[in-house]
C-alpha cells in the first residue's frame, strides 16, 4: 500500500507543470550564478574557483531554504489535495491504512521536491563547462561537494520542512492554512536569525538554524581560498550537532503528523461560521415556488446607455470590482503581511557597523523597502497580471463577459488599474511600516515628502514591469507560457551586464540609479533617470496599445483571426496610440543616445578594462622616465555646483630633482577633464591620447638637473547632458567633493591606473598583478607610496562658489569675500604638506570649537546634527593624546566635512577630513554599550595627521603600517582612555573576526605585517591586533616613546623615505630582550594561536576564598603566505583571568578577580589560582589580545563544586 501511494504521488507530481517550472527556474538561476557574476546566490563567488566545493555547498544551502516554497506545493498538496478536490471521501471510505496513505504521499512529495534539487545540481554541474569561462577558475569536478550538499544539507532540510508541513497540513487541513503557517515559520526563522547573529553566542546561533546553513558557514568561516577550492567540512562539530538535532526534530514532527492526521472529511470536526450568511430558504417554500404556475414575466423598462460616459462609468466600476477582487484575496493579504514582517525586521536591523546601529533615517528606510519588496513585488505583479487577465476564463465566465456590450479598452484599463493598485498598496504599507519602525526607535523626523517622492519613483518602475507582464499575457494568451516568457525576459536582462551589454537603452525598464541623499536630494540623477523612464514608458504604452489591439474576446480564436482583428483595431484609436508611443519611444531613444554616447562616453566595463590594458601596454615603458617634481601648487578654482562645472586655473612649480636632463613631460589627466591651455616654456605636443588622457610634450630646451619652471594650466571639469550610469559624483548640486587626482594633472606614468584584478589581467595577457616593490628595494624609496610626482609641497588656493554654499580646501583661511555674486575663499597652507588636496562645496551648518590654539570645525548637513558633539570630542581627545605622546599638531585647524553618501569613507587631507554622510553622521550612539565608531573613525582620521601627514612610508612593502596600522593604534589608545579596556575586547574581537575571515579571500599571498602590500585586512585588522598586543606587552609609554622618536627623526623627510624596517628598529630599541622574539612573531611572521579553556571549576575554601582550576589547551602556529601551517614552541607568557559578575549583569559590568600572565609551556595543562570572591567566568587570553583562530572558547563559566 505504501508503495502504491508513493508511486501514485510521485507520478502525479512529476506530471505537474509546476514541478518543472520550479526546477527550470531554479536550475537556470543556479547554473547562471555558477557561470557568471550576473546572478548571485547568497554571497558572491569571490575569488575562489567558480565550481569550488565551498561554492557548491553555499548554493545548495541557499536553495534548500528557497526550496521551502517548492516543498509546500508538493508535500502539502499531497496531503491536502483530496480535501480541496473533494476526493477525500473516496479515499477515506476505502479500507486504506492511514500510515501508508500519509507517509506514501509525503515520501512521494519529498521525492518530487528532490527532483528540483537534482535539477539544480545538474545545472550547476553543467555550468562549469560553459564556454568562455576562465579555465584557471575551474577546479576538478567537485562530486564530493555535491554528495555532501545533497546528503548533509538538502536531504535533512527537506525532511525537516516536510515534517513542519505535515504538522501544519494535519492541523489546518487547508492549503491556505499551511501557507500561512509556513510564512509564519519563515518569519520566525528570520527573526531568530537576526536576533542570534550577535557574535557572542555562536553555538546558539548555529543550533537555532534548522537549515544548517549557519553551521556550514561557521565550519568554513576562516578557510583560505586554497581550502575553499579543495575541501569540504568534516561531518563533525557544529555541522554534525546541527544536522543531528534537526533530523531528530524532523522525526518528531513526522510522529506528530501521524498522530494529528485524521482521515475524515473536513468540516466534520468543527463548524466554522460563515459571515453574512442569510437564512436558507425552507425546502418546501422552494418547491412551492418552483412548481407553481408560471408567473407573468414582468421586467421594469430599462434604458441601457452605450455612449462614452457609460464606458467611463463602466471603467470606474470594473476598476473597483477588479481591485477589490485582488486586494481582498487571501493570497494577496498573506503576501502583504509577509512583506511587511520581512520589511519590519529588515528596517529594525538595518546597517550595523561594529555592532552599532545607525539612525533609521528616511533614505535607509527606503532602501529597506526596496530590499525587501523589489523581488517580491516583481513576482507578485507578474503573477497578478496573469491572474487578472485570465480571471474570467478561469472562472469559465468569459463567454458571458465577452458578449457584453463593453468597449475593449474598459476591461483592459480596469485590469491594468487593478494591477497598479497592488503596487500602491505595497508601497503604502511599506512606508507605514517603516514610519512605524522609525517612531518605535524614537526617531521622530518623519519626512513624508521624501517618502512620497522616492516611492513615486519606485512605483513608476513597478508600473513598467506591470505593463510588460500584462501585455505579454495578452499576446501569449496562455497563462503559463506568459509567465515563462516574462520571467525569462527579466532573467535574460539580468544577464546582459555579464555579456557587457550595459546600456539601459536595450534593457527594459532600466535606468541609471537615482539614489537619494539627505544632503543632495536626488541631485542630478533625476534628469537622466527621468529621460530613461520616459523612454521606457513610451515602450510600455506601445505595448499596452498593442495589447488592446490583440485583446482576446470570445472563445480562443485562431492566430489568423487574431491578426485580422488586431489589424482592424489598429486602424482605430489603439493604432493611433501605438503609433504615437512608438514615435515617442524612438525620439526619446535618440535623445538618450545623443546624451549618453555622444555628449558623454558610454564605456561598457570590458571596454574600460581594455583601455586600462592599453594604457599599461603603451605607456608602461615610461614608468622609469625621470619627471620633474611638483614643489608648489597654486590654484584658482571656480565651482559652479548647480551647473556641475568647475574651472581650474593653476600653476605647478616644477623642479628637476633628478640627475639627468628632462626632455619630455608626460602629463596624465582624468578623461573628464579638458585642457583649455597649458603654458610652460617652449614645447611641442608630441603625442596626445585623448581616450586615456595621456599627453607627451617635448621641451625645446631640456630641463637641466636642478632647473625649475612654472607649469601653468587652465582646465575645465564639467558634466554634460546625462549619462547611462551614475556619472561622476564629484561635482554635485550640494556636496561637491573632488581631490587632486580626480581633476589635476599628474606627471609621469601612474601605476595606480593599471588593472589589479588577476582574472582580468590574465584575459588581456598582462601577466600577474604587479606587486609593491620589495622592502629591500632601495631605489623604490625615492617615492612615497602616495605618489611619484612630488615630495612635500607648498599649497595655496582661491576657491569660489555660489553664495549659499561654503567652499573648502586645505590650508588656513586667509580671506573670505563676495564678488560678482559669488563667494570667494582664499586658503594657504602654512607649511609643506603631502601632495594630495581636495575641494568641497556645500550648504553646511558649522559647529566651531577650539582645543588650545587649534580651531575645530565640523561642517555638517542641517539634518545631521546628531553626532557632531561626539566628533568634536573625538578630535579634542585625539589631539590631547597625540600631543602628549607624540609630536605637536602641525596645522591650525581640524575640519571635518560631510559629503553625500554616494561613497562611504572618510579620508584625511592636511587638516581637512571629508567624511561621508553614511558612516558617522547618522550613527545611532544612544546605546551606551555600543562601540562608538564615530568617535573611533574621527580618532583614526585625526591620527593620520601624524601617521601619513608627518611621517610617510616609501613605496615599498610595509608602507601602510606607518599610516594605517599606527592610526588604528592611536585611535585605539584614544578610545581605551575614553571607554576603558573592557570595550576594547569587543572591538578587538570584531577586528580579529574580520582579519581571519578576510585572509581566506587572499588571492596572492598573505604577508607578515611589516611586509604588507596595501592589504586592508592586514594593515587595518591585523595591525590593530598587533599594536594592541605590543602595547600590552611592552607598555604604552615605551611604545609611544619609540613612536615619538621615530616621528621626530623621520617626519617631513626627503627621499629616501622611511620603511617599516626602520620603524621596527625604533620599536625594538624600546623592547626588552625577552620580548624581542615577540616583536618578530608579531611583525615578521604570520602567527596564530588556538588557545582554549576546556574546563573551569572552583572550590570554596575555608577562609571564604575560592580555588579556581582552569584546564587549558594551548596551541601556537606559524603560517606561510599560502596558509600552510607549522607548529611553534609554546612558553611565552599568556594572560589568564578570573572574573566575577552579579547575577544578570552584563560582561561590561564584570569585576576582575585575577588577571596575570603566566608562561605556559605545555599544550594541555591545568592551572589553579586563588581568588577572593565567587568566580563567574575564567579564561585564557580572556580579552582576546592574541590572534586566536577561535576567540569564543577563551572563556568559560566556572562551575562551583
Amino acid at each position, binding site marked *: 500500500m505504501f508503495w502504491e501511494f508513493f508511486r501514485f504521488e510521485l507520478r502525479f507530481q512529476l506530471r505537474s507543470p509546476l514541478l518543472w517550472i520550479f526546477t527550470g527556474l531554479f536550475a537556470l538561476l543556479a547554473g547562471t550564478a555558477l557561470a557568471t557574476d550576473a546572478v548571485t546566490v547568497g554571497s558572491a563567488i569571490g575569488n575562489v574557483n567558480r565550481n569550488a566545493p565551498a561554492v557548491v555547498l553555499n548554493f545548495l544551502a541557499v536553495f534548500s531554504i528557497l526550496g521551502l516554497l517548492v516543498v509546500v506545493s508538493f508535500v502539502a498538496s499531497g496531503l491536502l489535495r483530496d480535501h480541496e478536490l473533494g476526493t477525500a471521501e473516496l479515499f477515506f471510505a476505502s479500507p486504506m491504512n492511514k500510515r501508508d496513505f500519509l507517509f506514501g504521499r509525503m515520501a512521494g512529495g519529498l521525492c518530487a521536491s528532490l527532483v528540483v534539487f537534482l535539477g539544480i545540481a545538474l545545472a550547476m554541474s553543467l555550468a562549469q563547462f560553459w564556454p568562455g569561462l576562465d579555465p584557471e577558475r575551474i577546479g576538478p569536478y567537485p562530486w564530493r561537494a555535491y554528495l555532501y550538499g545533497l546528503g548533509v544539507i538538502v536531504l535533512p532540510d527537506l525532511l525537516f520542512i516536510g515534517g513542519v508541513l505535515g504538522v501544519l497540513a494535519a492541523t489546518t487541513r487547508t492549503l491556505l492554512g499551511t501557507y500561512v503557517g509556513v510564512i509564519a515559520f519563515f518569519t520566525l526563522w528570520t527573526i531568530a536569525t537576526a536576533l542570534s547573529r550577535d557574535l557572542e553566542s555562536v553555538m546558539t546561533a548555529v543550533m537555532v538554524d534548522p537549515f544548517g546553513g549557519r553551521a556550514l558557514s561557521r565550519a568554513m568561516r576562516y578557510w583560505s581560498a586554497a581550502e575553499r577550492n579543495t575541501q569540504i567540512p568534516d561531518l563533525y562539530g557544529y555541522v554534525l550537532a546541527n544536522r543531528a538535532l534537526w533530523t531528530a526534530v524532523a522525526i518528531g514532527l513526522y510522529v506528530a503528523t501521524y498522530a494529528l492526521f485524521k482521515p475524515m472529511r473536513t468540516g466534520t470536526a468543527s463548524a466554522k461560521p460563515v459571515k453574512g450568511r442569510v437564512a436558507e430558504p425552507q425546502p418546501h417554500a422552494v418547491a412551492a415556488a418552483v412548481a407553481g404556475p*408560471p408567473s407573468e414575466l414582468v*421586467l421594469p423598462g430599462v434604458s*441601457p446607455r452605450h455612449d462614452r460616459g457609460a464606458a467611463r*462609468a*463602466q471603467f470606474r466600476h470594473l476598476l473597483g*470590482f477588479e481591485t477589490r477582487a485582488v486586494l481582498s484575496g487571501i493570497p494577496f493579504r498573506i503576501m502583504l503581511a509577509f512583506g511587511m514582517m520581512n520589511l519590519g525586521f529588515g528596517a529594525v536591523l538595518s546597517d550595523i557597523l561594529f555592532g552599532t546601529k545607525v539612525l533609521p533615517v528616511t533614505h535607509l528606510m527606503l532602501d529597506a523597502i526596496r530590499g525587501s519588496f523589489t523581488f517580491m513585488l516583481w513576482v507578485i505583479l507578474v503573477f497578478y497580471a496573469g491572474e487578472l487577465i485570465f480571471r474570467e476564463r478561469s472562472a469559465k465566465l468569459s*463567454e*458571458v463577459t465577452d458578449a457584453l456590450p463593453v468597449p475593449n479598452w474598459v476591461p483592459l484599463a480596469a485590469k491594468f488599474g487593478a494591477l497598479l493598485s497592488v503596487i500602491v498598496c505595497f508601497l503604502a504599507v511599506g512606508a507605514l511600516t517603516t514610519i512605524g519602525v522609525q517612531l518605535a526607535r524614537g526617531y521622530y523626523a518623519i519626512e513624508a515628502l521624501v517618502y512620497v517622492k522616492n516611492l513615486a519613483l519606485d512605483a513608476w518602475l513597478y508600473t513598467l514591469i506591470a505593463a510588460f507582464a500584462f501585455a505579454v499575457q495578452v499576446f501569449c494568451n496562455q497563462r503559463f507560457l506568459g509567465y515563462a516568457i516574462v520571467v525569462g525576459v527579466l532573467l535574460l536582462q539580468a544577464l546582459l551586464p555579464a555579456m557587457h551589454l550595459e546600456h539601459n537603452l536595450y534593457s527594459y525598464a532600466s535606468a541609471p540609479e537615482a539614489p537619494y541623499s539627505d544632503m543632495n536630494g536626488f541631485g542630478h540623477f533625476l534628469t537622466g533617470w527621468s529621460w530613461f523612464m520616459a523612454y521606457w514608458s513610451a515602450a510600455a504604452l506601445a505595448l499596452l496599445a498593442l495589447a488592446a489591439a490583440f485583446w482576446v474576446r470570445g472563445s480562443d*480564436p485562431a492566430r489568423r483571426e487574431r491578426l485580422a482583428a488586431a489589424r482592424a483595431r489598429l486602424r482605430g484609436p489603439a493604432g493611433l496610440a501605438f503609433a504615437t508611443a512608438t514615435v515617442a519611444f524612438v525620439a526619446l531613444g535618440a535623445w538618450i543616445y545623443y546624451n549618453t554616447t555622444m555628449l558623454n562616453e558610454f564605456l561598457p566595463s570590458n571596454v574600460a578594462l581594455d583601455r586600462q590594458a592599453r594604457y599599461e601596454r603603451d605607456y608602461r615603458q615610461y614608468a622609469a622616465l625621470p619627471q620633474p617634481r611638483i614643489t608648489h601648487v597654486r590654484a584658482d578654482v571656480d565651482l559652479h555646483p548647480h551647473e556641475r562645472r568647475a574651472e581650474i586655473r593653476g600653476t605647478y612649480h616644477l623642479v628637476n630633482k633628478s640627475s639627468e636632463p628632462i626632455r619630455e613631460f608626460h602629463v596624465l589627466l582624468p578623461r573628464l577633464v579638458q585642457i583649455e591651455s597649458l603654458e610652460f616654456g617652449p614645447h611641442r605636443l608630441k603625442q596626445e591620447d585623448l581616450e586615456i588622457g595621456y599627453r607627451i610634450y617635448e621641451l625645446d630646451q631640456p630641463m637641466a638637473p636642478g632647473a625649475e619652471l612654472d607649469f601653468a594650466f587652465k582646465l575645465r571639469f564639467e558634466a554634460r547632458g546625462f549619462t547611462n550610469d551614475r556619472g561622476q559624483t564629484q561635482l554635485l548640486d550640494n556636496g561637491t567633493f573632488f581631490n587632486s587626482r580626480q581633476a589635476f594633472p599628474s606627471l609621469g606614468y601612474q601605476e595606480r591606473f593599471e588593472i589589479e584584478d588577476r582574472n582580468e589581467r590574465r584575459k588581456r595577457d598582462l601577466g600577474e598583478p604587479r606587486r609593491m616593490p620589495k622592502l629591500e628595494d632601495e631605489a623604490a624609496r625615492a617615492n612615497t607610496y602616495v605618489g611619484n610626482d612630488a615630495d612635500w609641497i607648498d599649497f595655496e588656493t582661491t576657491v569660489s562658489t555660489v553664495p549659499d554654499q561654503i567652499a573648502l580646501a586645505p590650508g588656513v583661511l586667509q580671506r573670505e569675500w563676495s564678488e560678482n555674486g559669488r563667494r570667494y575663499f582664499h586658503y594657504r597652507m602654512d607649511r609643506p604638506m603631502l601632495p594630495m588636496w581636495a575641494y568641497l562645496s556645500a550648504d553646511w551648518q558649522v559647529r566651531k570649537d577650539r582645543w588650545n590654539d587649534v580651531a575645530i570645525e565640523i561642517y555638517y548637513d542641517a539634518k545631521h546634527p546628531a553626532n557632531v558633539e561626539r566628533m568634536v570630542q573625538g578630535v579634542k581627545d585625539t589631539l590631547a593624546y597625540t600631543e602628549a605622546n607624540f609630536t605637536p599638531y602641525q596645522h591650525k585647524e581640524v575640519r571635518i566635512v560631510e559629503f553625500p553618501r554616494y561613497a562611504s569613507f572618510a579620508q584625511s587631507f592636511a587638516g581637512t577630513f571629508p567624511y561621508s554622510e553614511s558612516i558617522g553622521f547618522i550613527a545611532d550612539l544612544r546605546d551606551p554599550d555600543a562601540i562608538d565608531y564615530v568617535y573611533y573613525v574621527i580618532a583614526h582620521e585625526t591620527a593620520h595627521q601624524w601617521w601619513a601627514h608627518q611621517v610617510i612610508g616609501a613605496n615599498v612593502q610595509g608602507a601602510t603600517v606607518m599610516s594605517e596600522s599606527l592610526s588604528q593604534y592611536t585611535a585605539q589608545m584614544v578610545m581605551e582612555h575614553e571607554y576603558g579596556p573592557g570595550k576594547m575586547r569587543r572591538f578587538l574581537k570584531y577586528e580579529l573576526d574580520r582579519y581571519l575571515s578576510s585572509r581566506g579571500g587572499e588571492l596572492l599571498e598573505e604577508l607578515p605585517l611589516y611586509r604588507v602590500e596595501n592589504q586592508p585586512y592586514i594593515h587595518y585588522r591585523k595591525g590593530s591586533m598587533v599594536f594592541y598586543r605590543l602595547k600590552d606587552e611592552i607598555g604604552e609609554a615605551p611604545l609611544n616613546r619609540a613612536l615619538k622618536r621615530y616621528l621626530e627623526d623621520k617626519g617631513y623627510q626627503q627621499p629616501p623615505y622611511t620603511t617599516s624596517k626602520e620603524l621596527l628598529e625604533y620599536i625594538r630599541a624600546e623592547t626588552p630582550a625577552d620580548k624581542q622574539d615577540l616583536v618578530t612573531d608579531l611583525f615578521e611572521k604570520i602567527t596564530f594561536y588556538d588557545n582554549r579553556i576546556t574546563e573551569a571549576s572552583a572550590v570554596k575554601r575555608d577562609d571564604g576564598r575560592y580555588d579556581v582550576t582552569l584546564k587549558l589547551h594551548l596551541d601556537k602556529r606559524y603560517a606561510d603566505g599560502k596558509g600552510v601551517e607549522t607548529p611553534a614552541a609554546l612558553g611565552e607568557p599568556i594572560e589568564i583571568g578570573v572574573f566575577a559578575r552579579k547575577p544578570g549583569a552584563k560582561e561590561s559590568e564584570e569585576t576582575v578577580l585575577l588577571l596575570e600572565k603566566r608562561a605556559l609551556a605545555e599544550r594541555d595543562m591545568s592551572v589553579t589560582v586563588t581568588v577572593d570572591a565567587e568566580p563567574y567566568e575564567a579564561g585564557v587570553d580572556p580579552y582576546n589580545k592574541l590572534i586566536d583562530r577561535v576567540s569564543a572558547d577563551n572563556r568559560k563559566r566556572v562551575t562551583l563544586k
Partner: protein
Amino acid sequence: MLTIKNLSKTYANGVQALKDVSLDIPRGLFGLLGPNGAGKSTLMRTIATLQDADSGSIDFGGIDVLSNKDALRRTLGYLPQDFGVYPKVSAEELLEHFAVLKGLVDRKERKASVEALLRQTNLWDVRKRKLGTYSGGMRQRFGIAQALLGNPRLVIVDEPTAGLDPEERNRFLNLLAEIGEQVVVILSTHIVEDVTDLCPRMAMICQGNLLLSGKPSDAIEALHARVWRARIRKAELADYQARYTVLQSRLVGGEPVIHVFSETQPEGGFQLVEPDLEDVYFLKLRQHRAAA
C-alpha cells in the same frame, strides 16, 4: 428577425463545424436540436459575437452581426453552455456587475432591474449568498437572470437544462417560454422533449449540416403513417437494425420495443404508431449518416 445565410466555419484542426448553414429565425422560442458535437455551440457562439465565421452572414433586425458586434451585444442576452461564476461573490453583486457592463449605469434603474430579475428567477431570498454555495439549478437560474439584464431582444441559451432535476427544468423552461413571447430566443439542446414542448419553430443540425428547419408539427406530420412499432426479442435487435431503418429502440419491461420507419408494414407484429419529434430526429440523423 434573425437571418443566417450560408454560414461556414472550419476549425484549425480541420473539423468543419458549420457547412453552409442558412436559417431564418422569427420572434419566439426557437429550438436548435442536434447531437453532441453537431455544431450547435459554434453556431450559437457565432451569433453571440464570440467567434468569427469563415464565410456567410448573420443579420439581426438590420444589424450585420459579423461586422458590427458591438451593436448586437447591446441587444443580446447570452447564457453559455458551461458557465462558471466567481465563487466568492454574491449573486446580487455579480448581477449588478453585469448590469453595469450591459450599460445600466443609472444606479436606480439598475437596482430595480436587478431586483426584478432576482425575484423573477426566485433568487431574491438567497441573493446575498456566495455563488460558490449555489446548487446547479440556482446557478442556472442566475445565468438566465444575467442573460435577461437590459431587456435583450435576442436571447441565446446553450444547453440550459443539462444537469437540472425535473422540477428545476420545468421552472426554467416556463421562464424561457415567457421570454419567448416578446423576443427571439434560441434554445440549443440535445433533448428532443424540450423542443417538442416549447418551441413553435426549430432546426436540426448534425456535423455542421442543417438537416431540417421549420415547425415541429410539420415535421411530425410528414412522418404520418410511416412509423411502425414492434416488440421483439433482444437477440433479434441486430437483425432488425440491419434490415430496417430502426428509429428508436427502448426497453419496456426488459424487452426491446422498436420504432421502424417504413412506407409499408414491414412484417407481422408491427403496428402503426403516431410519430413524435424524436422519430423525426432519429430519422434525420439516420438519413444524414447514411448519406455521409
